């Protein structure tokens, strides 16, 4: 092992993605807060003319959070965790170093293009799959370069066994690749004709009900493979590493992996309950959504039990707090989702604010918390300095936790209220409320939600500040910490 004495893990790519995670997280949440406020105070729609309406900004918000913040977070952690669990440094291969950097810079350029075209209103019109075909092609290249990095790193590994986190990263890579390709199949009109009209425009290969099926097969599972699978990968690495406790049951983690892979894909049609897709498909979506509780909770319980006998860390290490809360929110939203997929509940919940409520307790409580915790854990190792402020971290934790609770409770009430009002009839069977009545009644909940957004955003700014200070001004470390991250 002598030749390895000077060898170190190379975090340059992980660092780059860390910066974009913070940048896109801030942007995405800023826009999110703005559009939440627009629903409460519609005058805010006119800040940027044509480019500042709720409708134009909403895809900006979702796409920056999904493809900006979350993907950056996934890649920042992958380029960190991947090396460590395979016990191989990127510095050992010039090719992998190049691929990593190429991956990042192409991603950065692609993200800029995506933001610009979205603001200009160039869209395929499918939620979460809005980018037109030239950008899709860039995305495919970005994705392939990630794949090369994953399998390249695996190819030169010293640790033969692939740690469970890597299973999840690989599943994320394969799942999104398949879903994205099939959902974005389209024909560019410019090339199908004598170069008529816009170069960017294309029409979907699927129409109507088929398009809906493919789209929600994609939409639901993009959540699965983008918001669940890679985040589970993070917990399985960062929680044991930070707490110094091995995963409670490694076998259970393997089983819930296959369970999740098998069940998740079937549940997509629960987005189309009571629509024109065939009945059996709706029922199947509904049933599999409920079955999905099993593997999800299998993972979640495994995460929580990892802390067995060490629960005192929860009180004195804020990082553990972030991760345990994230796992708890994971349990909450994986229970809430199946409830919404039950046909009778769906009849009320669908199209209402309960759905964004569900999305946000998952994303704010689970995804963002876990990614922030992961970056906090990585910072002292990457920058060789201790975390700048523990007390700021504590304050951020409580502020954001309150924000998430305010967010989902207000949206639960708003959603159920509106769902009930839409169907309310008087004694003669006539509808009791006009549509606008059911909008006006939501005003207080929209105000609370906007407030929750502001609180969460402030929390994220505290996180960003803490990270920047850690990178630049914190006390330097002589030696890499083994488990618990040092903080001032």
């Amino acid at each position: 092992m002598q030749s390895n004495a000077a060898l170190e893990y190379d975090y340059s790519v992980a660092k780059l993605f860390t910066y974009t995670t913070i940048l896109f997280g801030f942007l995405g949440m800023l826009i999110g807060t703005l559009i939440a406020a627009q629903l409460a105070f519609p005058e805010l729609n006119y800040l940027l003319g044509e480019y500042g309406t709720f409708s134009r900004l909403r895809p900006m918000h979702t796409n920056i959070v999904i493809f900006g913040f979350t993907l950056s977070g996934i890649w920042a952690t992958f380029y960190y965790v991947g090396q460590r669990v395979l016990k191989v440094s990127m510095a050992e291969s010039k090719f992998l170093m190049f691929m990593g950097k190429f991956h990042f810079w192409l991603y950065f350029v692609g993200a800029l293009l995506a933001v610009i075209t979205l603001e200009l209103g160039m869209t395929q019109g499918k939620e979460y799959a809005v980018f037109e075909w030239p950008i899709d092609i860039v995305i495919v290249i970005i994705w392939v370069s990630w794949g090369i990095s994953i399998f390249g790193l695996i190819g030169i590994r010293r640790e033969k066994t692939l740690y469970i986190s890597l299973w999840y990263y690989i599943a994320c890579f394969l799942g999104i690749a398949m879903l994205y390709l099939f959902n974005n199949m389209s024909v560019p009109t410019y090339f199908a004709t004598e170069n008529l009209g816009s170069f960017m425009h294309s029409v979907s290969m699927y129409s109507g009900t088929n398009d809906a099926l493919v789209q929600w097969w994609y939409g639901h599972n993009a959540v699965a493979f983008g918001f669940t699978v890679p985040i589970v990968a993070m917990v399985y690495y960062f929680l044991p590493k930070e707490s110094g406790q091995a995963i409670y049951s490694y076998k259970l983690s393997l089983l819930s992996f296959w369970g999740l892979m098998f069940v998740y894909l079937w549940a997509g049609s629960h987005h189309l309950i009571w629509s024109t897709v065939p009945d059996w498909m709706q029922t199947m979506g509904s049933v599999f959504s409920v079955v999905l509780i099993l593997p999800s909770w299998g993972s979640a319980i495994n995460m929580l039990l990892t802390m067995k006998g060490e629960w005192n860390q929860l009180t004195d290490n804020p990082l553990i707090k972030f991760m345990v809360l994230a796992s708890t929110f994971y349990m909450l939203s994986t229970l809430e989702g199946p409830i919404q997929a039950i046909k009778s509940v769906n009849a009320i919940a669908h199209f209402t604010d309960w759905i964004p409520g569900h999305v946000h307790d998952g994303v704010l409580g689970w995804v963002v918390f876990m990614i922030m915790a992961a970056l906090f854990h990585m910072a002292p190792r990457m920058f060789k300095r201790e975390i700048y402020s523990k007390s700021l971290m504590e304050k951020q934790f409580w502020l954001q936790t309150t924000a998430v609770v305010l967010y989902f409770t207000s949206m639960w009430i708003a959603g159920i209220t509106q769902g009930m009002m839409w169907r309310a009839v008087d004694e003669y069977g006539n509808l009791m409320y006009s549509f606008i009545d059911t909008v006006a009644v939501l005003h207080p909940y929209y105000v609370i939600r906007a407030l929750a957004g502001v609180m969460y955003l402030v929390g994220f700014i505290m996180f960003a500040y803490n990270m920047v200070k850690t990178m630049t001004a914190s006390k330097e470390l002589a030696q890499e910490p083994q488990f618990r991250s040092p903080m001032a």
Partner: protein
Amino acid sequence: MELRELQGYASFFMTIFLVVMLYGYIIHLYRSEKKGENDYERFGNIALDDEISSDPVVPNPKAQKENEEQNK
């Protein structure tokens, strides 16, 4: 209609096959541990002991060969 029938059978048997595989895997996990062939829980240490200089839980023979070559 024939295609749909075929798909119906395919889906039925595939589901059964996958369920059998999953249960087979569970049995495999526990049995190989009981027989002492493999201790799955030791893989949990991959995350805990992950310095580049620490010994792999299961060394990759290919990488080892390269190492030896380097050390010659």
